[in-house]
């Protein structure tokens, strides 16, 4: 049975429920579905005020290819029965979705591990860049060291 993989980059929001429901449609071997939704926060004040919006820039062509490479790696490492990755680009206001990862498997460990792996890699390897709009102006978000260490834990030693 082929493993359904969906990768989409889009400006519009996504429907988490539909993506989760798609994981079990027509299958009897799905016992666990994990979803991760990444959402635009606005609670952290800095000298520029609160975040009014994020704008996500991406590298078309490479972004899809890079996500596909990591989905393939996830499928090779865990017995997944389905994977969906949706990443938005463009302007996103607080409370809106940014990214969705949904993984399905017969067992919960694989679904959890696959989703965490994909999120860690999306953070550090997918060619997307966030720019914050605050009252005082716009600023590119800086990469976090903790995201690099999160991604590094999946490297085979």
């Amino acid at each position, binding site marked *: 049975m082929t493993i359904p993989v969906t990768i989409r980059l889009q400006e519009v929001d996504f429907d988490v429920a539909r993506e989760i429901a798609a994981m079990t449609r027509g299958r009897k071997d799905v016992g666990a579905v994990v979803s991760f939704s990444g959402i635009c926060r606005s609670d952290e004040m800095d000298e520029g005020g609160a975040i009014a919006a994020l704008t996500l820039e991406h590298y078309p062509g490479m972004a899809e290819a890079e996500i596909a490479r990591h989905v393939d790696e996830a499928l090779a490492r865990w017995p997944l029965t389905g994977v969906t990755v949706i990443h938005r680009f463009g302007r996103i206001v607080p409370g809106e979705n940014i990214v969705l990862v949904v993984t399905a498997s017969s067992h919960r460990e694989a679904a959890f591990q696959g989703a965490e792996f994909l999120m860690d890699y*999306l*953070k550090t*390897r997918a*060619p*997307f860049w966030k720019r914050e709009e605050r009252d005082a102006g716009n600023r590119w978000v800086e990469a976090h060291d903790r995201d690099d260490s999160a991604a590094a834990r999946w490297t085979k030693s």
Partner: protein
Amino acid sequence: MKVLYFAWVRERVGKTEETVEPPSTVATVSDLIAWLSQRGEEYAHAFDRPSVIRAAIDRMHVKQDTAIAGAREIAFFPPMTGG
């Protein structure tokens, strides 16, 4: 070869892409960064901390010591902040 810029590298350079023809002495990604930096103030500003710049050749992440021979598309950008 085509060179692409993203995020603040793009803003500093002032363009999203261009076609360049570096001399054959420019062998690696790191050489290309140094060569671009000589092209004007905007490039010098974009590449003023070369160690933070990430690169991709033909849409694959590469290290700066990678050879650029045969590359059709080279992209420069800051560390990624998606997800």
